[in-house]
């Protein structure tokens, strides 16, 4: 780094444990108790520079608190947070939010109602540049060229959130935090903004943490996804890692639709109600195998009874009972069965994972 970030005078550069060098953001053992309840427990996380981490979790799992700790809006009770290899929060150091060079987009646009769009975007810039080309550039980036003179209240929700993003990007922060920025928007608008933000963050080469409770959103936007459950990081990996190789039962059931079928494993495979299933990790004895509904196909046979059909239009889920065990099976289009029909089921997916019972 050519010029030291301003917080260096506040806080000495402390090499963080377990060599997070090269990470734009590193957290080690972060814990936070709020109102007597442990909200964050032993959080370790690394975000490499230039990548987007989607922080996925149900509401109340602590993901917003974690984000606020990174931003400096809250202070962890235990643990260390480093941005660009400089500790910003640790046992005896705390860099105030205004000195962290972190951009943040909140759930609501949080635009200053008394300032124009340009005034909002320029708010974090040095005085000389507050109404210069940098503001125009940031606005152009989010597709709002020429809106600088308008007041935020004259814009609708989507554009307001774009301005908020432009404001965060304009200051060229080392890290951008997005706290469910689309949760207040309508579904079609969300979809648009989602792919656009993905493109924008990539174009800006920004390091970002994107908080969401929407699995689709997390998978689309994150280079990697961290799933947070009850104050802990349950698993970090690519979207495919989380979906195909969940680290725990809880991950398997939170991410996507899953059958957990009882089976007997004998090393590389397991015998389940839908036949023999290859295992990605060897297992033995009585287990539950994670089987995604789309990995089960209907075939001629009479092992299973169709109990119900959930028809969604583009696809449908056949709820069957196979040897007394409910199995959900997803097919494209409308299935050629009726309730009460007897069908056969077979496994058609990649090697799956099993958890011992």
């Amino acid at each position, binding site marked *: 780094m050519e010029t030291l970030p301003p917080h260096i005078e506040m806080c000495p550069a402390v090499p963080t444990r377990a060599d997070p060098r090269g990470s734009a953001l590193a957290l080690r053992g972060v814990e936070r108790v*709020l*109102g007597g*309840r442990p*909200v964050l427990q032993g959080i370790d996380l690394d975000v490499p520079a230039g990548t987007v981490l989607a922080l996925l979790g149900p509401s109340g799992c602590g993901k*917003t*608190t974690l984000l*606020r700790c990174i*931003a*400096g*809006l*809250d202070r962890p009770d235990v643990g260390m947070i480093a941005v660009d290899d400089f500790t910003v929060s640790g046992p005896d150091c705390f860099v*105030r*939010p*205004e*000195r*962290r*060079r*972190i*951009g*943040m987009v*909140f*759930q*609501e646009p*949080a635009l*200053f*109602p*008394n300032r124009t769009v340009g005034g909002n975007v320029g*708010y*974090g810039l040095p005085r000389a540049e507050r109404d210069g080309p940098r503001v125009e550039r940031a606005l152009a980036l989010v597709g709002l060229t020429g809106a600088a003179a308008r007041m935020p209240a004259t814009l609708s929700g989507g554009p307001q959130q774009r301005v*908020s993003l432009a*404001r965060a990007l304009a*200051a060229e922060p080392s890290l951008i935090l997005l*706290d469910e920025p689309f949760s207040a928007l309508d579904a079609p608008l969300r979809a648009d903004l989602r792919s656009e933000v993905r493109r924008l963050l990539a174009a800006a080469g920004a390091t970002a943490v994107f908080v969401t409770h929407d699995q689709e959103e997390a998978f689309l936007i994150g280079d990697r996804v961290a799933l947070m459950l009850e104050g802990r990081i349950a698993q970090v990996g690519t979207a495919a890692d989380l979906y195909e190789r969940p680290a725990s039962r809880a991950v398997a059931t939170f991410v996507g639709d899953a059958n957990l079928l009882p089976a007997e494993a004998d090393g590389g495979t397991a015998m389940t109600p839908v036949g023999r299933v290859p295992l990605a990790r060897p297992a033995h004895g009585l287990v539950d195998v994670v089987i995604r509904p789309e990995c089960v196909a209907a075939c001629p046979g009479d092992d299973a009874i169709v109990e119900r059909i959930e028809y969604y239009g583009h696809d449908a889920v056949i709820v069957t009972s196979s040897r007394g065990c409910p199995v959900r099976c997803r097919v494209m289009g409308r299935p050629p069965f009726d309730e009460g029909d007897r069908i056969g089921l077979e496994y058609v997916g990649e090697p799956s994972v099993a958890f011992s019972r």
Partner: protein
Amino acid sequence: MTWRGVRATALAVALTVPFALPFAYLLVRNGQDLGGLWGAVSDTRLVGPLLRSLALGISVAAASAVLGTAAAWLVARTELRGRRMWALLLCLPLVIPSFVGAVALIAAFAPGGLVEDLLGIGWLPEVSGFKGAFIVLTLLTYPYVFLPVMARLRGLPPSLEESARLLGRRPVEVFLTVVMPQARAAIAAGALLVFLYVISDFGAVQLLRYDTLTRAIYADRLLDPATSIALSLVLGLLAVAVVVMERRSSRVGLRNQTHTGPPLMVPLRGAGMPAYLFLVLLIGFALVAPIAVLAFWAIHGIARGSPDATSVLADPGMILEPLLSTAGVSAITALAAVVIVLPIAFRSVRRPGRLGEMLAGTVVGGFALPGLVTALAFVFFTLSAPGPLGALYQTLPLLVLAYVVHHGALALGAAQSAVAGVPARLDDAARIMGRGRLRRFAGVELPLMLPGLAAGAGLVLLSTAKELPMTLLLAPAGFSTLATRVWQAAELAAYAEAAIYALVLVAISAVLTWFLVVRPALRSWAPGPLPGSAPPGAGAPPDRRSPEPTTP
């Protein structure tokens, strides 16, 4: 409109008439005597009082705005310890009527008072005039700014300030560029209320001998009624203009947004000591000092056996009688006010429109008119009216009517929210089940509205108990309230006696304020700095209109 709708509207209109009466009377009387009006208005005798009223109003409003805003920001946005306690204490000067504050200031510096006796200062400064009125009124009115500004700050989405901090601005800059512009409307609304309070004030300026409009109106009422009525009109127009402005400015606002977790608090660090010192001094002078002075006089008077204090103690009726008449007349007024404004509230809430707004506006106008002016209008009206109306002069019914006209707006606000809180669908549901209008009202709506109506009645009760000029002008001969007893004793410089009555009055006022204003406000105050435990949406700001200024 159905026949029933016509009846309801007619009832609401008829009940609104008394609220328009005083102002209408002033207009008519002055219109009949345009020469007298012109004479009074062009007279130099008007200019002095008018300028003094404006000077006092503006300077007190400005000082209150500064004190109230600073206190609100410290409590709402910094890492202050015990913020609930501070918020509570900072509201409490509201319980001290202005004439009691003035009595306390005069008594403190009077020979034999706290300053001379305890501090041993031989030279006593002159406290009357602008200086004294400014000090007393500022210390007693800053809560009118503190409350709305604190509510506004607590209602501001914390993400605004957090964004500003994350964008690299220091807390001071954030305060100036983000918080202040957002709080401006609340500060302005609070300052206008203070201005209204000050120009309407009679007790403090009269006791401290500062010749404002109210004092001139009071002084001229017997010898030069034409001037008195003309000046009343000037003051009334000024007050109504202020209320119109206040209602405009308080309508501006940003909708509350979702709160997530605790807002970022500004660390006090080195500024901690001055911050606490500021709050301690403010509460010390506004709340502790007046009560200490009064308690000092009361205790000394009793201990030394001063004649006025002992006469009060010797006869329990001396305290009991004004206490009971204060309680009785206030309770009757509160009940009457609720009964009278309820149809108006129903009409304005259930059938929103221009007529409803006009009716509600008229009631608020009755509140805007200073109590002294309202009372004078009723005095002149009954004295000049022929026949049975004239007989009303200085009777309890007229006193209660005048109270209701002046304080009815307090009940109306509460009644309107109570009516709005009962979904009209409930009425529809009961109607479908075949219930008649009266049974629907008594069985469904009234029970649901009762808490709200009781709160409104309580506010009227509180304001009436502290009321002074209307009681002075309209009370039947021999009828005295605690307020008039304080007044009479203070005019005779019987400070020990005044102090005893004042302490009783403040105690009643404090109890009522606690149940009606403070407790509801605290209940809506989310568990403060302990984040995570705050249920979303629980941070509803305390109703900024609930503690209305009352003409002291």
